[in-house]
Structure formats: C-alpha cells, structure tokens
C-alpha cells in the first residue's frame, strides 16, 4: 500500500493493533488539534505532544490577554504621535485635548493621529482653533507666562510656559568647568 503521510500510516497501524486486541483509543485527532496550532513553533514544541500542548496553552492565554493590551498599546502610540505633531505647532497634548473636548469636537485619538500624518493642513487648522480657544479660557490667565524682567514668588516655575517640563527655578545658578 502507498501511504501519503506518516500520520495516516500511523493511524492504520494503530487501528490494526486495536483489532488485534490492544484497546488504546486513537489519540491522533486530539493531538492534531494541538499540532495545527503549533506547526510554526521552534524545535520539539512543534513535534512532541506533551511539550506542544504547553506551548499551545501559553499561546492561547497570551492571545486572550493581549487582545486587551493591543488597544492600550495602540492608544499610547496615537497619543505619542499626536504629541509629536503638536510640538511642531508649539502646542501641548493636554491643553489641546481638553480644549477639543470642551468645544464638543468629537474626534478621537485614532482619527486625530491619522489627520496629523495624512492631513497636515487640517490638523494645523485644528491646532489654531485650539490655541485661540485656550487663550479665551479662564485657566490661561492663571498660568500665563510672566513677561521677562518681572520677579514673582508665587507659581514661578509653573508660569514659565504651558505645562512645559523646565524644572529649574529662575534663581538657580549654573557653573561651568572647561
């Protein structure tokens, strides 16, 4: 007889053994269920059942968990890209998003990051609108940067810019070694 695959030969061999009296159940289908998931794994994880079943279980657990994690990762990437595009227009992420939400602009981060890559002029107009709106809001007056030449004791580092991360206060002295 000509056998087209090892598995088929093995199954016939086992069936013959069954008829001869050794009553082991045929586990081929059960094992194939796992091997169909692990055919592209490395080494014994694709050929040996006891190792493959552990690898397959881990793979399925990770796939389940990462369906939630993927959404988190994608959102972080969108936020990063929007922040980068806003830096080109000298604006920041938090005021931009807060202004858009208060103005009832229903654009989520997924759409915004697409706009900032593929529609730069549209994004620029959005940023201009947000900047104007931000200047009209009440918080701007409280945290507006102080004009140079005026010393203030209160909120000095906060007033340096819109939420920029310059942590050194004005009175800090720097030394050079050269």
């Amino acid at each position, binding site marked *: 007889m000509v056998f087209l695959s090892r598995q088929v030969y093995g199954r016939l061999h086992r069936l013959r053994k069954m008829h001869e009296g050794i009553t082991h159940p045929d586990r081929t289908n059960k094992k194939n269920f796992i091997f169909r998931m692990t055919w592209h794994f490395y080494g014994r994880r694709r050929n040996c059942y006891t190792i493959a079943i552990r690898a397959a279980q881990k793979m399925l657990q990770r796939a389940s968990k990462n369906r939630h994690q993927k959404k988190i990762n994608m959102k972080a*990437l969108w936020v990063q890209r929007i922040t*980068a595009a806003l830096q080109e227009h000298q604006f920041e992420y938090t005021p931009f998003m807060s202004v858009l939400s208060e103005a009832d602009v229903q654009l989520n981060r997924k759409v915004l990051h697409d706009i900032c890559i593929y529609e730069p002029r549209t994004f620029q107009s959005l940023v201009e609108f947000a900047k104007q709106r931000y200047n009209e809001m009440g918080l701007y007056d409280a945290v507006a940067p102080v004009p140079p030449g005026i010393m203030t004791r209160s909120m000095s580092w906060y007033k340096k810019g819109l939420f920029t991360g*310059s942590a050194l206060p004005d009175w800090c002295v720097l030394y050079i*070694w*050269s």
Partner: protein
Amino acid sequence: MAHNRVVQWSTMSRIWWLYDAKYQCPFRSARIIAGYLQGQHKPIYHALSDVGDHVVVINSRHIAMREELWRTFTFSYHTGYAKGFSRTPAWRLHSMEPTMMIEKAVYSNMPGFLLRRKYMRRLHIYPDEEVPPEIIGNVCDQIQQIQKVPKRLDEYTAEEIQAFPKLFDWSEEYVIENISADKPKDTVKAAKK
C-alpha cells in the same frame, strides 16, 4: 500637483540636527537629544520603524551644572574583572574627555533596547565649534537650547544701557560714599608700624 507629491517624500528622510550645548545642563539636554535620535518628534514615529535623526552637538566642553555637582556627581564603571570598579567625579571626567558626559547622559536616557547602540552612532559630539565639513554640510536644522543663556553685564552695549528705562537718578549734590575708601583698616598692623 507635482510639488505636493515631492513635499511628502521628505517625510521619510533622515534629518541632521544641530544642538549648541554651551552653558546648557547636560542631563536635561540629553532627554531632548535622545528623543530626536529615536524619532519621537515625528508624527510617523514607531519603535520598530527606524525613523530617528542625526544630532550634531557642539560646544560640549562648555556645558554647565548647578551647585556642587561638578565636585559631587560621580560616574561609576566596572570593567567586569576583579578590582575593576572605579568612580570618577564629573570635573575629572570632563577634563579628560569633554564629549563623554553628554554621550553617557544620552545613552542612559534612551530605553535599553537593541536599537540603542545603533541610535548612538547617529550622535556626533564635538567639544568646540570645530566640526568636520562633511558633517556640518549635512546639518539642516537646529534644536532650540534648553536654557536661555543670560547676558553678562559687560556684554551689554553702551546704547542698550542708555536706552534701558530708569526710574530715577541721584541728584548731583547727593554724595554716594565710596565703599572701598571706607574699608576698616587693620588697627593692629597700623599700631605695629
């Protein structure tokens, strides 16, 4: 129409940035420079796609640190062999190698992934303003300095001092005491003489 198509090709190009580190804090500069090397300033950023740019840092000899950091801040290194641990204060390392402080700061500011050394090869640091022509010829844009460098009093021109608004001035009859002339003289020395 053709013009718009060409404008978008330059999105994928690798840009050479210039950064002047004169009187700047090396650690805070390094955070910005590491971001540019990874391409985090671009809207097309992704960690796996290599969108990082080149950064040329000049005047790294003239960086500034606050308070006693030149004396107290130490760089540690272990060679891996026995008795291979050494600690060098910042002033000493900077005297020996004026480019090393920025290099170390940028390296530690980047995440510890496999692309870090590849990105570090795109960082070119020079102690003074002398940069080879093949490097300076590539530079297209400049990163803004972290700290505004204040003007020294002797750097103000006479016209600027004249033009600066004055609230009031002493009248000519008012006598301003000469502080150096009124220094309390050493009475013991005077008595000995």
